[in-house]
C-alpha cells in the first residue's frame, strides 16, 4: 500500500494555466494514492533553470517524473539518466524529441490557434485588420499559437491582414499597454487574438480602457476571461484542458508504474467556447477559475 512519489516539472508555476494543471495532478494523486510535487521556472525561456529542477528531481529519486519540456532537445541527457535509473517519464503539454517518455499528454496548439483564427474570421466578417498579443516569442506554445493563428489567416482568409504581432510576456499590465498602442496605431482594427490567459486579459483591459469595440478572442480560461465572455467584452476563447493534462499525466505515470502499456499520445483536446456554450457540461468541465 505504498504511496508513489511523482515529480512534475512544468514550464511555469504562477500562471493560472499551470495552476490548473497542478490541480488536475493533485486530483489524480488523491484518487490514486500518490504524492506529487509541481515546479516550473519563472519564465518559459529559462531552459537551463528547468534543467536544474529536473536534475534536483532526479536526485530525489522519485517513482516517476512528469515533464513539460521548454526545449525539445535540451533535457535528453537528464532523461537518459532517468531511464537508466528506471524512472518512468511522462511528457505533458509539449513533446520531447526522444523516445524516452512513455507517452505525451498534450494539446495541439497549432490547431487550437487555427480554430481561433477561424472564429475570428467569422466574427469580423471575413475581412479587415487583426492583431495578435502573445506571451512569448520563443517558447513552444508562443510560437505554435502565433504560427497557428497567422498561418491559418494567410491560407484561408486573404482579405484579412495581421497587422501586428507583439509579445507581453503574459504580463497583464504590459499586455494592456501593448493593446492600447496597437489600437491607437490602427484605429480601423477589427480584432485581437490574445494567445494566453495573461495576454487575453490584457487585451480586454486595453480595449475597455480605450472604449473600443473590437472583437477579442482569448486563450485558456480563468475567472477573469470567463467573466469577460459573460459580459461580452470577449467574444470567446479557446480552452485546452489543463486539468485534464495534469490528471492524465499522473494517471499515466501510475499506470506505467503498475506495468500497464500506454498509448503514444494522450490528446487532451481543445474547445472553442463563448457565452452560449460556456455552460455546456462538456465545456464547463474543462474550464477553470
Amino acid at each position, binding site marked *: 500500500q505504498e504511496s508513489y512519489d511523482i515529480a512534475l516539472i512544468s514550464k511555469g*508555476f*504562477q*500562471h*493560472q494555466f499551470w*495552476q490548473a494543471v497542478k490541480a488536475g495532478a493533485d486530483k489524480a494523486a488523491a484518487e490514486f494514492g500518490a504524492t506529487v510535487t509541481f515546479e516550473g521556472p*519563472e519564465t518559459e525561456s529559462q531552459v537551463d533553470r528547468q534543467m536544474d529542477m529536473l536534475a534536483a528531481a532526479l536526485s530525489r529519486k522519485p517513482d516517476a517524473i512528469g515533464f513539460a519540456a521548454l526545449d525539445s532537445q535540451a533535457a535528453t541527457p537528464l532523461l537518459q539518466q532517468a531511464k537508466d535509473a528506471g524512472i518512468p517519464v511522462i511528457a505533458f503539454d509539449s513533446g520531447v524529441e526522444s523516445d524516452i517518455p512513455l507517452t505525451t499528454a498534450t494539446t495541439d496548439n497549432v490547431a487550437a490557434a487555427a480554430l481561433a483564427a477561424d472564429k475570428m474570421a467569422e466574427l469580423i466578417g471575413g475581412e479587415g485588420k487583426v492583431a495578435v498579443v502573445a506571451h512569448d*516569442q520563443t517558447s513552444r506554445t508562443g510560437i505554435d499559437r502565433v504560427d497557428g493563428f497567422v498561418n491559418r489567416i494567410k491560407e484561408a482568409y486573404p482579405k484579412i491582414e495581421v*497587422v*501586428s504581432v*507583439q*509579445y507581453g510576456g503574459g*504580463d*497583464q*499590465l504590459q499586455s*494592456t*499597454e*501593448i493593446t*492600447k*498602442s*496597437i489600437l*491607437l*496605431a490602427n*484605429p480601423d482594427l477589427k480584432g485581437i487574438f490574445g494567445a494566453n490567459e495573461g495576454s487575453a*486579459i490584457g487585451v480586454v*483591459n486595453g480595449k475597455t*480602457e*480605450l472604449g473600443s469595440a473590437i472583437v477579442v478572442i482569448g486563450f485558456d480560461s*480563468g*475567472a*477573469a476571461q470567463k*467573466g469577460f465572455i459573460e459580459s461580452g467584452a470577449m467574444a470567446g476563447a479557446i480552452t485546452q484542458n489543463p486539468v485534464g493534462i495534469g490528471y492524465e499525466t499522473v494517471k499515466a505515470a501510475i499506470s506505467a508504474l503498475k506495468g500497464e502499456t500506454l498509448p503514444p499520445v494522450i490528446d487532451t483536446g481543445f474547445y472553442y467556447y463563448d457565452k452560449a456554450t460556456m455552460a455546456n457540461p462538456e465545456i464547463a468541465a474543462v474550464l477553470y*477559475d
Partner: protein
Amino acid sequence: MTDTALPAKRGIRISGAFHRLLAFSGLIALVVVFSLASPNFMQTQNVLAILQATSVNGVLAIAATLVIITGGIDLSVGTLMTFCAVIAGVVLTYLGLPLPLGVLGAILAGTCSGLVSGTIIAKLKVPPFIATLGMMLILKGLSLVISGTKPIYFNDTPGFTQIAQGSLVGAVIPAIPVPNGVLILFLVAGLAAFVLGKTALGRYTFALGSNEEAVRLSGVNIDRWKIAVYATAGGICGVAGLLIASRLNSAQPALGQGYELDAIAAVVIGGTSLSGGRGTVVGTLIGALIISVLANGLRILSVPQEWQTVVTGCIIILAVYADILRRRTL
C-alpha cells in the same frame, strides 16, 4: 568674499531653472520624433495612454528615488507592490470590508514591509541590496501563499476600478479625461518632492546618502531615519499596488518581479546618482516618461519587438549621454 559668493549664487539659480527646462530635452526630442513619424502618436487618447502606462512605474520609481538618495537600493519595490495588491484583495474580497479599509490595508502593508527592510538594513547592517533582494523573494512567495496562487478579483467592490481608471478630471472637463491613476502619480510625486525638500525626513534622506558617518557623528539617530525612509518608500509601493490592482481589477500574485529594474532605470535616467546624496522627483518622473514614451512610440510605429528592445537600449544610453553633455557644457 560675500561679494563673489552672491553673483555665484544667482548664477546657480538661473542655471538651475535652465537646467530643469533642459532636463526635459531628451523626452521632448523623443516626443517630437514620434509625432513626426506617426500621426497617431500625439492624439489625446494616446497621450493619456502613455500617462496611464507611466503611472505604476512612476510611483514605484518615486519610492525607489527616496531609497536611492540615501545611497541604498530597493529591489523589492515590484514584488512589494504585488504584495500590497494582494493584501487589498484579502481585505476587500476575502474579508469583504469596505473600500477605504482596503486602501489603508495596502498602504499599511507596504509601510510595514518597508519598516522590516529598513530595520534589517539599519540595525543588522545587512547591505540594502541583500536585504531588499531577500524581501523581494519573501514578498513574492508570500503573495502566492496568501492568494493561494490565484488572482483575487475585486468584483464585489465596484468602486475599486475607479481608483486608477476613473477620471475626476474627465468629469469636469470631458475633453481631457485624465485617468485618476495619473492624478495619483502626480499627487505622489508632489508629496514626495515636498517631503524631500521641506521636511526633516527629506533632509536626512539627502544627508544619509551624502555622508552617513558624518550624520552619525553629528549625533543624529541614523537608524531611525533610515528606517523611516524605507517605510515611506514601502507606503508608496502600497499606492502602486492599489493602482495596478485597480487597473487590472484584480491582484495578480505572480506579477511584480522585474518591475524593480524599470523603476530603478527611471530613477537613474532621471539623473539621480546611485551613490546617493543627489536626486529629484521631477527627474524620476521624466525618466519614467522617457521609458513609457519610448515603449509606446515604438509600438505605435509597429517596430518588430526584437528591434524595439535594441532601439530602447540605444536610446536609454543616448538620453543619459545627452543629459551628461548638457551638464558639462553648462
